[in-house]
């Protein structure tokens, strides 16, 4: 394939390293003769360009402007369209985040390109890019392809491709594009008027042990028990979306489809029923212990150890045995 574009992501100053997985996938699609382009859009994002070059990008285009401090669709879309107009690509890959899953389909829709979100992988079939996702409660893998010779725009879930090791010797070619040139008279239709965003404090993907809280913890006191068990095991605390939405734990502790994908040596699910949206984020854990009062909770299907009981009674017993 001639060229693949990766639209990398920096949000609130933090580089999203699924962007590097996208680069690895892009290299596999492009093949040894093809080109991998990367693009960075935002405010103060220029310093991250070298990381993309070291991660495998042949060219990096940067649109760095103070007006791009927070993501809105229109300027990002305009930048991506300008890049693709200058250097057409057969495939465009983005991290499957709230930014990527907004921008990717918007870009595809505006170009008339094929669109797949939350892909678990991409490949070349019959000379054309395809993307697949595992769904139907992890029973079915569906593969999509572009109609005709249209490009494919796909967002990739964490783990869809290997994380490439950085190659500091790779410099790549870094170019800049001015925002006003990109916007070409277009404006910002939507604008962010308020933000309530926490700083990221933990990277769960590095944790060997995770003790995770689900809605079954019932209260901040229940979360405190989970914290104590995690501390006793030298691990980190994780959470389901329900717990984050309740405000009991911060969003950087969320595991699942809209949070982190983790693969720790030990995962203890406390009061987690096991909705598929959560399980896809922890299925590859080496050992799973699940504690739940419901003997039919789906989480038990992914557990090596099944404890049917009230976590408020079980965790103190475990803490006593660990002390």
């Amino acid at each position, binding site marked *: 394939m001639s060229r693949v574009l990766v639209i990398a992501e920096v*949000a609130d100053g933090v580089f999203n390293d699924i962007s590097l997985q996208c680069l690895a996938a892009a290299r596999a699609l492009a093949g040894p003769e093809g080109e991998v382009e990367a693009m960075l859009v935002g405010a103060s994002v220029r310093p991250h360009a070298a990381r993309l070059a070291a991660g495998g990008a042949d060219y990096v285009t940067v649109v760095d402007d103070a007006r791009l401090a*927070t993501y*809105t*669709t*229109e300027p990002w879309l305009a930048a991506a369209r300008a890049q693709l107009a200058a250097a057409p690509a057969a495939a465009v890959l983005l991290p499957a985040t*709230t930014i990527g899953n*907004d921008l*990717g*389909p918007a870009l*595809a*829709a505006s170009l*008339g390109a*094929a*669109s797949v*979100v939350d892909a678990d992988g991409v490949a070349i*079939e019959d000379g054309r890019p395809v993307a697949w996702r595992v*769904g*139907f*409660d992890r*029973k*079915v*893998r*569906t*593969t*999509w392809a*572009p*109609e005709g010779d249209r490009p494919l725009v796909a967002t990739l879930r964490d783990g869809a491709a290997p994380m490439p090791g950085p190659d500091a010797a790779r410099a790549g070619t870094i170019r800049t594009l001015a925002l006003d040139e990109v916007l070409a008279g277009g404006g910002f*239709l*939507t604008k*962010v*008027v308020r*933000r*309530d*965003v926490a700083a*990221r404090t933990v990277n769960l993907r590095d944790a060997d*042990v995770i003790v995770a809280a689900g809605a079954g913890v019932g209260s901040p006191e229940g979360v405190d028990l989970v914290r104590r068990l995690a501390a006793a095991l030298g691990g980190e605390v994780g959470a389901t979306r329900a717990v984050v*939405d309740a405000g009991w734990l911060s969003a*950087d502790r969320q595991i699942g489809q*809209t*949070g982190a994908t983790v693969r720790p040596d030990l995962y203890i699910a406390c009061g987690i029923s096991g909705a*598929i949206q959560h399980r896809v984020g922890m299925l590859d854990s*080496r*050992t*799973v*212990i699940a504690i739940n009062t419901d003997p039919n909770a*789906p989480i*038990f*299907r*992914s*557990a*090596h*150890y*099944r*404890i049917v*009981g009230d976590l408020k*009674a*079980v965790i103190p017993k*475990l803490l006593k*045995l*660990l002390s």
Partner: protein
Amino acid sequence: MALTIAVVAREVWDTRDLSGTVLDENGRLRPGALPTRYEPEDLNALEAALRLKDAQGATVTVLSPGEVRQVDVAREALYRGADGAVRIAADPDELDDAALGALLAAAIRKLGSVNLVLVGTAVPDTAGSLLARHLAQALGWPAILWVDAIEETAADRVIARRAIEMGYESVEAPLPALLAIGVALLEDDPRAPRPAKAMLKLKLKKAEVPVWTPAELGIPDPAARCVTRRRRREPVPPRVIETRTVDPENEAELRAMLDSVRKGA
């Protein structure tokens, strides 16, 4: 300006906790293998529309693509308080989001004077992409995705709170606009929109729900609008996990479990 709201209502396969095989030997969904349900985030979108109607007055019309399989979501929406419902005669499982978005956009134009469209953000298992973005593109309107609260509406704009990875953002868009509603719509119970009203069920049980065909919407061959093709479906081998049950009342069993996992960790 009073709001005229169109809400998308999809009947989707309920893929939670599936047992048994889903595909036949040809890679097609086995008839009868799956139940269906009102797409939960579409139901949240309806609830958001009805709350606007309750608070400030609005006309709410539901657009439901596809024939009824098991759950008549258009009628369910009427029972909850929607002012009208229209079925779109096209199988959403056989169209991609671009084609479905084009059909729905044509239906919204046919409704006339719609200034707010609400749809769930969720991507059903049969869909490749996010319908909301394709629908917004077909309408030529701005969109805000992952909305969990509509904070403010005025004659010419809407402010909605959207959930992002590390918190929330309030985003303003000019009207007309599309809002894609996420799962955490309601602070008290995000999964419990208002139930159907018994009185409306009695009143509307036999109400006619009009059906608009693609030809009536000016798109006689919606499949020709598809840009993403489903190439195949394949079964995923089940994960075989040997599960041991540990009695929480048995300290020896708990200790043995901890010793085992700590050795392995």
